[in-house]
């Protein structure tokens, strides 16, 4: 039996079509995925992301622990600053991607829903002496879009928010991060379970459109953001996943897990993860084979882009592949072109 977030009934009441995602019954859409997508690009939408895993880490060893398990370096963070990074296995394969918020006391990590057990076990296994790891069920709502912050403030008794991008603020029991997974402005609000429904209702009342996992996927793909388990996994490293920038190789003596396995690859990764636009008609999907001038590749994520009104995707191809390529869609080779993601940011199309 799949888990339900505390907002399950609210999703059903809003017309949500519920599907099993990573063991959670979540809304895939509330009618039209494209309308939800467009609302986030042009106005404001809200996603229930309470299925994601919130892990608080504190104590004297917390920083050393996170500097060991995460390939990005938390040591420079000031209070309420956020950091995106990945945790690796000993071979440099990606166990998960996560966001770490530096709090006045300790850290908060948000890891994926699909990796919950694995990451909680991994953190426990790597834990150091003087620290505490606490997994806290909370409601997490991603309010995203150019009008998201205005509408959140209008819907609540929050003061005007002046949080810098990739930073957070706390208001009472709430932690509000100016983060997201859509390529638009917006925030992610973490709050106690018993307050979640009231905020959900207030947001809908204020005209924020409920948006499902379907729109979340097309928005993140247009924004060129990876999905764990699809665009990267334990067999791929950040170097071939377009997130090499999230690896802090300096200082050279920080012995984070996986570092020594991957250090040698640094100079010349064999593959790259990049964007693709389908020139012919059709829709790109996960796992379709790609043919480039320098060898074979694969579509890691593909969809129809509501903003570009054509099919886009992410592909893993040989590092030296040139732009013109073909994708095998059900046995027919279709013309496609590699482009540098993101495709869309802040409502604007960034590719030709």
């Amino acid at each position: 039996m799949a888990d339900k977030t505390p907002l399950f009934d609210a999703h059903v009441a809003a017309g949500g079509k519920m599907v099993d995602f990573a063991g959670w019954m979540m809304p895939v859409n509330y009618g039209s995925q494209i309308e939800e997508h467009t609302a986030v690009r042009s106005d404001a939408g809200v996603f229930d992301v309470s299925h994601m895993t919130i892990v608080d880490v504190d104590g004297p060893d917390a920083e050393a622990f996170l500097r060991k398990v995460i390939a990005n370096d938390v040591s420079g963070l000031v209070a309420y600053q956020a950091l995106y990074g990945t945790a690796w296995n000993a071979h440099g394969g990606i166990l998960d991607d996560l966001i770490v918020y530096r709090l006045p006391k300790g850290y908060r990590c948000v890891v994926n829903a699909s990796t919950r057990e694995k990451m909680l076990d991994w953190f426990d296994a790597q834990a150091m002496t003087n620290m505490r790891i606490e997994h806290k069920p909370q409601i997490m709502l991603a309010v995203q879009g150019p009008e998201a912050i205005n509408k959140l403030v209008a819907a609540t008794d929050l003061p005007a928010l002046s949080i810098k991008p990739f930073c957070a603020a706390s208001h009472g029991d709430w932690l509000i991060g100016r983060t997201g997974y859509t390529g638009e402005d917006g925030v992610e609000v973490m709050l106690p379970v018993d307050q979640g429904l009231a905020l959900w209702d207030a947001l809908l009342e204020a005209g924020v459109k409920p948006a499902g996992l379907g729109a979340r996927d097309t928005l993140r793909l247009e924004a060129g953001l990876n999905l764990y388990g699809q665009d990267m996994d334990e067999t791929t490293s950040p170097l071939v996943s377009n997130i090499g920038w999230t690896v802090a190789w300096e200082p050279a003596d920080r012995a984070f897990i996986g570092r020594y396995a991957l250090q040698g690859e640094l100079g010349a990764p064999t593959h790259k993860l990049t964007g693709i636009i389908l020139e012919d008609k059709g829709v790109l999907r996960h796992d379709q084979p790609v043919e480039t001038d320098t060898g074979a590749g694969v579509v890691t994520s593909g969809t129809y882009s509501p903003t570009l009104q054509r099919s886009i995707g992410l592909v893993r191809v040989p590092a030296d592949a040139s732009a013109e390529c073909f994708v095998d869609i059900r046995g027919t080779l279709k013309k496609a072109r590699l482009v540098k993601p993101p495709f869309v940011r802040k409502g604007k199309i960034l590719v030709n």
Partner: protein
Amino acid sequence: MSDIPAELKYAATHEWARLEEDGTVTVGISDHAQSALGDVVYIEAPEVGLTISAQEEAGVVESVKAASDIYAPIGGTVCAVNEALTDAPEIVNQDPYGDGWFFKLTPTDAVDLDDLLDAEAYAEVCDTED
């Protein structure tokens, strides 16, 4: 509750079929199917002149969410495809039993329509999937 017109015949794979006065059979996907798929963004129609048998793959409908095969409800030769869907696939969502039709067949034997589900039996198929 999805719309299941009583005058049509249905396949368990969610296609509908309608015998026209000229003896051809028009094929589309049901309201239940378009709703389950979500926003339709691309149709791969069969080629006119193609002869197919019942339950054989006759094309693909792609929504934002996923690709789904379309099967021929009965055997026959494709005599027309709905060109309007090439540029406006969303018609399938808006009018699945009307302007959103997929293709027309000249049936090998129109009697085969009797093997398909009536509206009541098809409603049961939909119920078991919900």
